[in-house]
């Protein structure tokens, strides 16, 4: 059996809303009792619509927020943010790529500094070596050395997403959380970024948690799929099983709502329309 990089056991996250002078406030259950396991080198896709708790789950996995209850294990080690805080070693193991490539890069930071920052704050590496590493990573994600000293606003969305991926990889993480990494991109650029992710996964034996609402992308990239609905994992299993034989009603609704771009469906629709 191959090693388990990430495991969540009965994760729960509640948010307390309001609670003013006269009201007692409400509790929102953003994530309810979610469990999963991801093997090394595999991709777990978390699918759901807005407000289903998938981004909250991403923040828990990335150790930005602590779960209200449940356990998060990375490489078999239990993470307890509240009690132990976060060690740099743990920090390095999980990195994240965000959805919006325009908000995820500091507008006042040159690309070289964006890539060098994780090394600067986590290691005692000399400047020259940081520079070399950053340059190598820049080339690896398909950008050129001339991009090193440019500012983020000079790049297109796809290029920025490449930079964000490069930054996430600077610390050699074990696990990469991809929070809708291609939903803000054009179709052609989306294909390039998905290919890049596949290449990097092969090269570094990376484990991905891929969060998306786009079923066609999920079907293409995932090994396992978890469907979330109002904070609950309503469906969890291998990709082929979930896509060929969805169990939960919500999964079925989701599949039915996804637009089809194959010729047969178009023909059927045109026939309906003519009738």
């Amino acid at each position, binding site marked *: 059996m191959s090693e388990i990089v990430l495991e969540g056991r009965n994760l729960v996250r509640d948010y307390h809303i309001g609670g003013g002078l006269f009201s007692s406030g409400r509790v929102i259950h953003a994530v309810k009792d979610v469990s999963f396991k991801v093997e090394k080198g595999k991709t777990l896709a978390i699918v759901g619509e807005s407000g289903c708790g998938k981004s909250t789950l991403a923040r828990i996995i990335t150790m930005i927020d602590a779960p209200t209850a449940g356990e998060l294990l990375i490489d078999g080690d239990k993470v307890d943010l509240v009690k132990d805080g976060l060690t740099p070693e743990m920090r390095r193991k999980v990195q994240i790529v965000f959805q919006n490539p325009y908000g995820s890069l500091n507008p006042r930071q040159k690309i070289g500094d964006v890539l060098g920052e994780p090394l600067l704050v986590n290691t005692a590496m000399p400047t020259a070596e940081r520079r070399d590493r950053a340059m190598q990573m820049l080339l690896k994600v398909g950008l050129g050395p001339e991009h090193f000293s440019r500012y983020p606003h000079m790049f297109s969305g796809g290029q920025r997403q490449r930079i964000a991926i490069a930054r996430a990889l600077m610390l050699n993480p074990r696990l990469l959380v991809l929070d809708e990494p291609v939903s803000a991109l054009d*179709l*052609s650029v989306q294909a390039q970024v998905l290919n890049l992710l596949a290449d990097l996964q092969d090269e570094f034996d990376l484990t991905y948690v891929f969060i998306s609402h786009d079923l066609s992308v999920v079907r293409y990239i995932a090994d396992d799929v978890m469907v979330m609905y109002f904070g609950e994992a309503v469906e969890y299993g291998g990709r082929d099983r979930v896509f060929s034989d969805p169990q939960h009603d919500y999964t079925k609704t989701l599949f039915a709502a996804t637009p089809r*771009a194959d010729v047969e469906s178009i023909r059927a629709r045109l026939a309906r329309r003519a009738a």
Partner: protein
Amino acid sequence: MHLLEIENLVVEFETAAGPFRAVDGVSLHVDEGEVLAIVGESGSGKSVSMLAVMGLLPWTAKVTADTMRFAGRDLLSLSAGQRRKIIGKDIAMIFQEPVASLNPCFTVGFQIEEVLRVHMGLDGKARRARAIELLNDVGIPDPEQRLGAFPHQMSGGQCQRVMIAIAIACNPKLLIADEPTTALDVTIQKQILDLLMNLQAETGMGMIMITHNMGVVAETADRVVVQYKGRKMEEADVLSLFEAPRHNYTKALLAALPDRATGDRLPTISSIFNEDIDGGAPA
């Protein structure tokens, strides 16, 4: 005669870096009862060309065209006042961000009735009745109650329904939908698209669906115009476009769809297309 006919539309913007041509010689037409999809990636000028038709571009834009005719009237020669009478009444538009398209300071009912007051000249009672009827048509439950709701009290899907109600309030001949479902979830997208298609079939209005999503094109369009960097690449009916795309750019676009992936990696636009804009078009 076509409902909307545009020939050789050019839109240029004056920017700090010099003039920028967003739309470069686009010609297209829509007939009554027809759904035309304009598909393209960001920067293809698909929204700008329709905003030019609506006269909604900022003053920095320079719009020229050989022909721009709507229902037999030349839009280019109309005065701003005459144009305003057509826009919002005979041509309506809905936008990508439903929540941002509604004024947060006023109730939904007020915003629907305002359109009716400006364009239809109905009295208060008739306006209210029509507003309720419209909300009913776009599938908002309990319309009498919802008239008093503010946009922030409604979900994105419901706001888009209200936008559609406002758009169809004056029985437009042409509805322009600019990425109407991009900001919405898939299940809501399905509902909104179904609603739009039903309304279109019922009223027989012409519709232009601007989108970047090939799935939405496949689900809605009769005819498709593919744009890239401000130019028209291909125009075809929807079936032949998906079955046998003629232009290299269209081929590349379809091949990049993950649902059509066959191998381990997706074919990318650049590996097929190589900016060869003029290549592949039939002689």
